[in-house]
């Protein structure tokens, strides 16, 4: 009897905590969502708006559709006040840039990082300390020479320049994570392949890589999330042409000031890929976040 009572109390505690988690974790996202649905007149309220009084999808449309088209279609009345709440440019460029840079950077990092990780795992080549130590340095402190270097070869504010950085910055992460996946393959597997007459590069591409397929996918998604969330690098390197979503969020200004609704709408759009990928690799999150130190 006493045992049962204790169990019930335990369960109640669990649910109280669970509800607390749901509230605290989701409230900021709820707020972002409501802001994204509010028309411009409700952005800076005269009292607290707990929910949008006149919900509209206009903010999401303005993200993608140019000002002129919005006015042509009569979605916003052409009055001066309403005109002022439209941004000078759409967010399409930043979304496309973010997709190209995050994906491309991930592929570069994976391509170089995986080979390095295999070398470290199998041949104990070089010191692997440097890789993770590099990851712990604040990126802003490394950006100064990169800006100098990029300005001399005209890579500032360009997609190739950003691609290079998004490939290099997360590489230590790839090396460490993939190394932990390669370490999971027993060396006997390699030896067996070598005895059967495979060359070391063949062992890498035909034996080792297929065995870490899952790990490779997880690492790829991790790097994508890292690049996708980056603000510091993009803020320093890009101004106009190569801006990414996090930079664009800060840039949404019109003649009236900050366009809170648009910022929130873009924030919601930006959550979709990371949330989707994050949930897809939920099983591996711990391993990825701890650089493979906890198997999870």
């Amino acid at each position, binding site marked *: 009897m006493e045992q049962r009572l204790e169990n019930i109390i335990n369960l109640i505690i669990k649910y109280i905590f669970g509800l607390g*988690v749901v509230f605290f974790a989701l409230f900021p996202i709820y707020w972002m969502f409501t802001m994204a649905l509010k028309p411009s007149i409700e952005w800076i309220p005269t009292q607290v708006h707990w929910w949008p009084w006149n919900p509209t999808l206009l903010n999401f449309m303005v993200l993608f559709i140019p000002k002129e088209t919005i006015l042509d279609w009569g979605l916003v009345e052409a009055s001066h006040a309403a005109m002022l709440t439209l941004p000078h440019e759409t967010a399409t460029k930043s979304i496309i840039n973010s997709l190209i840079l995050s994906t491309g950077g991930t592929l570069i990092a994976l391509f170089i990082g995986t080979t390095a990780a295999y070398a470290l795992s199998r041949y104990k080549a070089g010191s692997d300390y440097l890789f993770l130590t590099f*990851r712990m340095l604040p990126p*802003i402190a490394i950006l100064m020479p990169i800006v100098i270097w990029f300005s001399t070869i005209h890579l500032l504010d360009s997609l190739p320049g950003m691609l290079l950085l998004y490939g290099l910055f997360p590489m230590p992460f790839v090396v460490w994570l993939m190394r932990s996946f390669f370490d999971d393959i027993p060396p006997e597997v390699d030896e067996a392949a070598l005895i059967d007459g495979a060359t070391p590069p063949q062992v890498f591409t035909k034996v080792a890589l297929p065995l870490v397929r899952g790990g490779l996918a997880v690492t790829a998604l991790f790097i994508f999330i890292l690049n996708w969330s980056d603000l510091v690098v993009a803020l320093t390197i890009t101004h106009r042409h190569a801006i990414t979503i996090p930079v664009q*969020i800060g840039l949404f200004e019109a003649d009236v000031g900050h366009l809170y609704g648009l910022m929130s709408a873009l924030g919601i759009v930006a*959550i979709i890929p990371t949330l989707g990928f994050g949930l897809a690799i939920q099983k591996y999150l711990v391993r990825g976040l*701890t650089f493979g130190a906890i198997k999870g």
Partner: protein
Amino acid sequence: MTVMNFTAMIPFALTWYVGMTNWAPQLTSNWWEADFLGPLNYIRVIPDDLFLNAIGRTLLFSAICVPVEFLLGFLLAYVFMGDFFGKKFFVLIAIVPMMVVPAAGGYTFYLMFIKLGPINGLLNILGFNSIPFLMVTKWAYVAIILADIWQWTPFIFLIMGAALLGLPQEPINAAYVLGASRWHTFRTVVLPMLRRPTMIALILRTVESFKLFDYPFMMTGGGPGYTTQTISMHLYEAGFRYLKYGPTAAQSIVILLTMAIVGFYAVKPLRAAQRGE
């Protein structure tokens, strides 16, 4: 590998050199034309109040955020231990904040803490006066710390949750059989077994918190005045907004060297854990 190490050294050497000049793009367009000052900028690092205060503030943020996040995350992981109906759902919700792009999260927290935002609305409903969160240094700290806790507690929760799940059950059951109380078992049996994951979680979170940038940048812009400016923000502002390349390069080198040493020692236990030592 040697080539890679060497390539990685070039930017650092360049920064080191620029740190010894008075280079600013508005004076001379090329860094090699700038006046050579010798170690002057490096010596000036010491009495630079903005720089030193930014370091102090970053350390203060870390010193508050990391322990709170750890305690909350660990508590949550402990409460959620074992299987119960709806656990999957709660865990799923709990890790959502980590997936939000920090720039967007920062903006949302700014909107939540403004005068007519929901936080003040809630305070008013509960019968308190509105607090000018982002206008007063003390409250701006509270707001930024809350945002950081919101985003990074899930990180600790995940690590400690995985660690608790991986605990061997025999010693715990044995302690119960021997008549130990729940608290006593937790303190003398469970906690010692959690030493390694605790170290890993704390190290990773601490090192990461030294980089704090997105939240203060989006929420206060370092204000009021410079009072919430972190070291990353200071380097960004001084270097890339006010274009003081020379001194900023010197400060970057100081930060890089410090963090490289910290990082080097932080990596050791991580690697040991990875190897299962």
